[in-house]
């Protein structure tokens, strides 16, 4: 075993392999399933009442792959547990004090080969297949160390189930994931030295390069491994730094950022609530030690007496000093901010301090410097967890085999993940139209200015509208939410789904009297669950709409994840096939405020719409628009465009409907029926002004139309909508300048990098908004077109030229450009509003 050369030893240094001579016997009740590059082992008897807990080791955590290479003829992978990676975990798991944990979980161990290139598509696919074939009856919890966390992540975001969970992603069916020192953003230790070099501190180049060479030459026995061409070289490219924080100069880093990891992390946002990330770091060595490392690294490495712990300390010093803290603290292999899945570059962790980077998931931090916390009481996430080793801190190996960490893992396993207990499905109702659930905010502020009465009136109006359109073929449910806490019974189901509209009106007339706070996320989840159950019980309806009215900011955390201003397109696609759409209404919610952004986010994420309302009339109108059904006329259904438009209307795909009828009307400008449907399509897309003009055109084509009076009324209504909308957009644009100005001021107040992330999201979204402004305002005035172009261009310039580290420098003047332009635009818009709209 110890015949291995220093090079093998160094693997330990870089990626935390453990050497164990202990071979655990395979128990009779264990079961093993193999795939070409991996294996899944169940420990003990199967028990379907328990949650499967799958352990996934880090890089080179098993020797099965080496054996497979030797015995190629066997064809199938051998199970072995020679290394017994999870020895400490199992010891803890089996100890008497954890009997309740054994009651809850059934233990599985997943083993895989680490050196495939690329490794994650193959391994995550095999893991998924193993799960589908063998444990798809219960949702598993995954506990993974280091690279194992990336295996789990790849499985969650890329794998699509077959079989019982057909079509769902791995993340959908995963109950929870605990990652221990996982390189969520990769590690610079796996980045090509040519890329690292320009960022290396003077005098450290040699050290860094040597350390890298030694590690990555495992199979070449001490010689550099030709990673490009030699297939036996270990994998590293999948593990390299993703540069999420621009700690490398973007220009120098060019195309070497870790694309698969970046994409995986983007997709992971859907599963943030399932993840607990553990991370630790070592206190860097004294200057004298670091100097010694710089000067005499090779000797230290060749010395087989050097312990793993010491090697990790050396690696930590190389990563910290060799790059001038560019990656912050590390556990010897993985930067702390990578392990914690931070979203900003600034990790403000100092030993003993509680300052902390911004992570979207729950985290447990293990740091040097704080005395004596013990893992026997519940600590909230995100705060400092524990310190065993006040002087040294925690290294990469400690993160899966030291008791301090494992105690917390046990605690989290016990408390955090629970099997979903599904309540019984409601009785089915004979309906064919989309069911609607009304979800009312009845927090205390709804008492002000009679807002609750406005909500009631608007709700009643919406019910009438629905009854007229759908009759009894649609179902409705009413829920309300308010409360001073954020859990328990903050959501009330006032009316289970019914097609009895009379009953619904009665409930609507007696909404609960407002009090308490606004537990918006809880309300959202409860309503979605209720809708989900209804859809499950009524197979003939495929989607449902939730009309959500709120008048203020959530008191129980935001819905929009931190740092996310808008979703990029690729993410929206995966979500907008959502079967449950949220149609949100903000009553008296300030334009551009956090509360409004939450509502907008919820609507855009699910494919619904958001409307603001400031008074009774606007509220009634907002409800009408949210529950509105569009009934196009079907006079020329033999035409392809026409029938396509009708179909799109039936599918509520109003964008496609508009496109079809635009084509049709262009070819048949005098077909009043087509023009009517075109007007309807404009209306459905909230292009009020154009809709009104098109209805007018329809009336000109059919001067004796019997519905003339009704359409005249509609035109007036649309005119009012347009005026209201114009007013709203002026407020929204005003809020943008306010936002930008606050940013500008804060540049001079403090270092701004932690805000820069969110800011970048803002500019990306707003760039698109301003570009589309003439279309949104339905005005092609030359000044507006130019202003819109200029603003989106200057916002784009900001996004291009501001980098996280040097945000202050880059943004100080560029920020004033959109501010100045938007101020000019506002002045012109207000003039235009005065002269042309009111």
């Amino acid at each position, binding site marked *: 075993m110890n015949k291995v050369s220093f090079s093998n030893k160094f693997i330990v240094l870089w990626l935390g392999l453990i050497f164990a001579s202990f071979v655990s016997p395979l128990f009779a009740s264990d079961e093993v399933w193999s795939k070409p590059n991996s294996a899944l082992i169940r420990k003990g008897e199967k028990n379907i009442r328990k949650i499967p807990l799958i352990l996934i080791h880090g890089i080179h955590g098993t020797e099965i792959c080496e054996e497979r290479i030797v015995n190629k003829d066997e064809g199938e992978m051998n199970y072995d547990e020679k290394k017994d990676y999870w020895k400490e975990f199992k010891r803890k798991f089996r100890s008497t004090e954890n009997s309740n944990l054994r009651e809850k979980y059934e233990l599985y161990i997943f083993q895989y080969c680490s050196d495939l290139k690329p490794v994650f598509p193959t391994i995550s696919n095999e893991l998924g297949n193993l799960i589908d074939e063998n444990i798809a009856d219960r949702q598993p919890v995954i506990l993974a160390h280091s690279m194992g966390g990336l295996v789990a992540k790849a499985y969650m975001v890329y794998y699509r189930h077959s079989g019982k969970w057909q079509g769902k992603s791995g993340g959908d069916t995963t109950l929870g994931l605990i990652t221990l020192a996982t390189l969520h953003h990769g590690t610079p230790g796996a980045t090509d030295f040519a890329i690292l070099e320009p960022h290396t501190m003077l005098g450290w180049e040699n050290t860094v390069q040597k350390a890298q060479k030694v590690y990555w030459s495992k199979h070449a026995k001490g010689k550099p491994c030709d990673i490009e061409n030699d297939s036996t070289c270990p994998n590293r490219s999948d593990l390299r730094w993703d540069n999420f924080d621009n700690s490398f100069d973007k220009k120098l880093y060019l195309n070497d950022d870790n694309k698969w990891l970046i994409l995986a992390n983007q997709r992971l946002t859907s599963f943030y609530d399932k993840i607990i990330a553990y991370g630790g770091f070592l206190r860097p060595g004294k200057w004298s030690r670091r100097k010694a490392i710089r000067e005499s690294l090779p000797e230290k490495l060749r010395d087989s007496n050097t312990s793993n712990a010491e090697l990790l300390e050396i690696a930590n010093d190389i990563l910290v000093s060799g790059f001038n803290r560019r990656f912050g603290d590390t556990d010897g292999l993985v930067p702390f901010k990578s392990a914690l899945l931070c979203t900003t570059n600034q990790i403000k962790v100092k030993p003993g301090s509680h300052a902390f980077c911004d992570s979207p998931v729950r985290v447990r931090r293990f740091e040097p410097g704080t005395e004596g916390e013990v893992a026997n009481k519940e600590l909230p996430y995100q705060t400092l967890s524990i310190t065993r080793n006040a002087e040294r801190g925690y290294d990469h190996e400690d993160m899966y085999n030291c008791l301090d960490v494992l105690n917390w893992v046990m605690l989290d396993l016990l408390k955090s993940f629970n099997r979903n207990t599904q309540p019984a499905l409601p009785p089915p109702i004979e309906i064919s139209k989309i069911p609607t659930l009304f979800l009312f905010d009845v927090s205390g502020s709804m008492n002000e200015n009679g807002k609750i009465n406005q909500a009631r009136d608007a709700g009643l109006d919406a019910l009438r509208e629905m009854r007229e359109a759908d009759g009894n073929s649609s179902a409705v449910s009413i829920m309300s939410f308010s409360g001073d806490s954020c859990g328990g019974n903050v959501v009330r189901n006032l009316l289970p789904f019914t097609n009895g509209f009379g009953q619904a009106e009665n409930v609507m007339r007696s909404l609960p009297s407002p009090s308490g706070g606004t537990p918006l996320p809880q309300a959202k989840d409860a309503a979605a669950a209720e809708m989900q159950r209804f859809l499950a019980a009524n197979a003939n309806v495929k989607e449902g709409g939730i009309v959500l009215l709120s008048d203020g900011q959530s008191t129980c955390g935001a819905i929009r994840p931190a740092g996310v201003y808008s979703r990029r397109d690729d993410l929206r696609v995966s979500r907008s096939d959502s079967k449950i759409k949220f149609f949100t209404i903000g009553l008296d919610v300030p334009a551009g405020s956090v509360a409004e952004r939450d509502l907008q986010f919820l609507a855009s994420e699910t494919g619904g719409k958001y409307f603001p309302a400031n008074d009774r009339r606007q509220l009634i109108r907002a409800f009408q628009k949210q529950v509105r059904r569009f009934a196009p006329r079907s006079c020329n259904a033999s035409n392809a465009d026409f029938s396509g438009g009708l179909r799109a209307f039936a599918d509520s795909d109003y964008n496609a409907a508009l496109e079809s009828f635009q084509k049709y009307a262009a070819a048949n400008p005098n077909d009043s029926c087509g023009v009517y449907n075109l007007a309807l399509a404009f209306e459905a897309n909230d292009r009020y002004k154009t809709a009104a003009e098109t209805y007018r055109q329809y009336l000109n084509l059919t001067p004796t139309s019997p519905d003339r009076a009704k359409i005249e009324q509609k035109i007036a209504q649309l005119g009012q909508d347009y005026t209201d909308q114009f007013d709203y957009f002026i407020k929204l644009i005003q*809020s943008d300048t306010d936002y930008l100005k606050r940013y*500008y001021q804060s540049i001079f107040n403090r270092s701004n990098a932690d805000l820069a992330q969110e800011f970048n999201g803002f500019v990306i979204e707003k760039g698109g908004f301003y570009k589309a402004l003439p279309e949104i305002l339905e005005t092609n005035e030359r000044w507006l077109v130019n202003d819109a172009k200029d603003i989106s261009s200057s916002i784009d310039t900001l996004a291009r030229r501001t980098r996280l580290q040097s945000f202050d420098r880059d943004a100080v003047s560029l920020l004033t450009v959109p501010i100045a332009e938007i101020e000019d635009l506002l002045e012109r818009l207000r003039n235009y509003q005065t002269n042309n709209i009111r």
Partner: protein
Amino acid sequence: MKKKSLLICLISLVCFLTPNSIFPQQMVGIPIKKQEAFVLEFKPPFDRLTVDLGDNSFTTNETTVFSISPQAVFLNNKNKPLDRTLIRPGMRVIISGNRIGEQLTASSVKVDNDVEKWKVVVNGYFESLEGDKAWIDGQSVKLLPGVTVRGTGDWKKNTFASFNDMQLGSYVEIDGIRQTDGITCATKAETKPNTFSDGDRKLFTAVQQNLVIPENLAGGKGKVWGREVKFSDNLELQTYVTKVGNRLIPRYQKDLPNDYPGKIVYRFFVIEDDSFNAFALPDGSIFIHTGLLKQLKNEAQLAAVLGHEIAHAGYEHSRKKIEDPTGKWLALAAVIAGAATKTKEGATIGTMTALGILNSYERAAEDQADRVGLYYMMQAGYDPREAPKVWREHSKKTQEAALNNLIYSNHSTAQQRLRNLNRVIAFNYYETDFSQTKNGEKEYMNTVGVYFGWIPKPVVPPVRNNTPSPSVTIPKPKPTPKPTPKKPRVKKRP
């Protein structure tokens, strides 16, 4: 009778203007022989000729008025008699006459160029198009029928039948005849693309990344070319300067896509410094001192300063200056680029070179920046006649010695700038109706005036619906004398 009354009028004017004490000794005229002059104004009834006599003459006044003696002769460049109504601003004339005290009389005015075919040269960027009239180098140009624009450089194979076929922002060289309406008719025209070389890119990168502003601006302290400066943290002031500057940027520049390599991203920085100064870097960074803002009177004057600097950056004057036919300057740019990354020696060389880039523009470049800057002003709706006032005021306040600060020391002196602006206005905007232009005094006072405490901050009615988002802290406003506006009502959740 008429002449007599005019004479009386003139004499009384002279009496009014001239101190009585010197009047008696100056009765005998001093002859003026062949004085070169630049015509600024000559209008009906053609009895007063306003000119600029340039640097080397008996007077240092920016403008000089000659009265035309009844017997005065007007000649063309072939010494043939000339109809005086053909004389236009911008023409070079040679004047003979005499001087009695401050009273100047011209007896002979000879136009130095071909009046019937007034040949001019226009070189610059093709900035905009109105019908068939192109604006180039701050002047309007039309193609004579039959004249086409020949491509050179990368466009060697192309010929353009009209300006309409050409790309805005391309470089154009025109030989033409200037018409009485001020439009130049091109007899020969060439164009080449506005290229962006690798060296330019290196220079841009060097300027942008390494030498301008520190990464962390806390407190606003930074360094520009090794000089400590304090960036103003006053949002209103900074935004205002950006706003005015932004309106001056030519449309074609704004319309370039953001990933176009040669796109100049203009950035305006206000520096808290009492000296009278403004300067531009080749990457489009433009700096203006509060000391300069303090001496301006209105927005049009600010536009004049910024327009001039925008023109410098846009016309690549600093790039041209360090351009070297042997390509040596590429190495120079590399040195600058290396300056901030590692070696200390590099930094020093870089800084020195950079100062060189900034310091001096050729006289011709200054004149061009004036021409183009005035054009930008006009385009943005400002009154260009405000531009010379900046320098008139400044030269009145300080003598030239006081101008020896970093940047403007090697510019044309205030006097030269003043004269040049006068000439450009006379030459290009003689028949322009200025009634549609503005000077923006009110706007200037409401921001810059408030900043300096000249006037109290105007009360802005509170706008509802501006509840600040809680994610960003609002810093304390700079203490300026102002009545506190009412706070917007903030909705409170129970």
